[in-house]
């Protein structure tokens, strides 16, 4: 899977997890822009873990605020 495909899949997962009317971009803030609760954010993360067969360490989630941060956390876990 290329980085572009990976980003597309993450964007699709985020889109699926929300009802946001506005388009989702790499800069979209998960809580401020999408209004996700902490449980909903964590459920989205576990969904990504299952899709990519990875485990994202809790410490790498502390700084995740935007879709871009989330993508980086997935890439780090895949390495």
């Amino acid at each position, binding site marked *: 899977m290329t980085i572009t495909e990976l980003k597309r899949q993450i964007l699709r997962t985020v889109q*699926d*997890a*929300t*009802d*946001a*009317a*506005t388009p989702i971009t790499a800069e979209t803030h998960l*809580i*401020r*822009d999408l*209004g996700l*609760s902490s*449980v*909903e954010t*964590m*459920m989205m*993360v*576990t*969904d990504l873990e*299952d899709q990519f067969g990875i485990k994202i360490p809790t410490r790498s989630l502390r700084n995740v605020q935007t879709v871009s941060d989330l993508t980086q956390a997935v890439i780090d876990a895949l390495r």
Partner: protein
Amino acid sequence: MPDSPPPSNMPQLLAQLERQAGDQPILRCLEDGTPREMTAPQFYGAVHRHAAVLAELSGKHIGIIGPNIPHWLMWFCAVFKAGAVAVLLSPDLDPEQLAQRSAQVDLSCLIYHESLSQIVSQADLPFRTIPMDHQAPSVPALPADPAPESLACILFTSGTTAIPKAVMLSQKAMVASIRHNVVGLPFRAQLTVLPLHHVAGFATVLNTWYLGRMVCLGQDMRYLFRYLQRLEPDYTLLVPSLLQTLVRKLRNGGPNGRDLGWDLHLIGCGGARFQPEVIQILNDHGIRVLQSYGATELGGLGFDTEMTPHCADTIGKAPPEIQVKIRDGELLLRCESMMMGYYGDPDATREVLDDGWYATGDLCRQDGAGYLYLQGRKRDLIILSGGENVSPEWVESRLLTCPQIQEVMVTGEDDLLCATILPIDDSPSTRLQIQEALDRYDRSVPTYHQIHRIHFTQTPFPRTPNGKLIRRKTP
């Protein structure tokens, strides 16, 4: 499901469940991501051994604190087998809260999960503590036979007030909490992700076994989708925020979520304000939806009413096991699983319990067919200086029909109604649409119901673990 002789206390009920299960698997959970099943002899064998550890604590109050794992359930059942009183504690307590709760209900012993050993140690408890992985002796103890009216279990209200109350359930109330078929719909395996220390957790597990079905146990509700896929339940009980997330996921999931690897047919949800389109989406995917209405004080009995898009605003209809009356607009209930009262707090007990009738604090109306409709919470009523009583929930339910409003909390400020709104996004066009929706609302209601002040927030409102709005805190 054997009906005779009817058990009158928890040891007798557990013996019935054990006999009924034979050597069948009764519990399924994930271990390192892989489904594992436990048979009834494995489960109840451990219960008997654990009960032997607690034999000298008969009649004492024993705390249990830990995550949703089979060991929690084994120790829970063992406490009853030993004739002791089970005190159910949230694993989210800090050391100070743990010490406070322990003193509040006179604990004599605490069974704790190893992941909480630091908190237990810091709480500096003046009694024996037992880790859940304690090696129990191989010789089981004789089961106790407590009186049906005696105290069996203490659990804390999830409460939106500062100090949770300690609800006392008798042996017979516990039995009534478990021996029923209020759901009334067929299912094969029930997934429990709600906390076991909550009545909706432990009572649902034991009721599922009473009905002869499989329990799938999820340790952490964040992994709900994983459990749905790997543990293969066809029924689960959720809180509203989880239901909302599940519905979003299901949109591309096919019938019963099969494209996601699920086989979901039935969902119960407590405390939800259902939108007709949510029920429609679930029904379109072959999933039936139950509105589960209950309270810790009611024990394990509650309403489980099947919802349709045409009656989305009801909280349901009481089953034959629950008597209903409405006094001054407030819903009063009476049933066999009713609490004995609040431990050590007779004044608080008198406020809500009268001749077995529990005053729910919910303001309701009832239609001719017996369906109840929530109008608001008695204690949350905003009383304006003109004497008008305004239910914030009623106003909020009207405002939430605006698609641009994600969450809203209505409060009284300077004798006027104020709405604090979490919009779906921060754009000026969204705010404009919300303002227009509020103008339309204001034109449709009397002056005292109109919103005179609006605050926008970007922070979701604080909620209890069960998803109830905590009104005393602002974001």
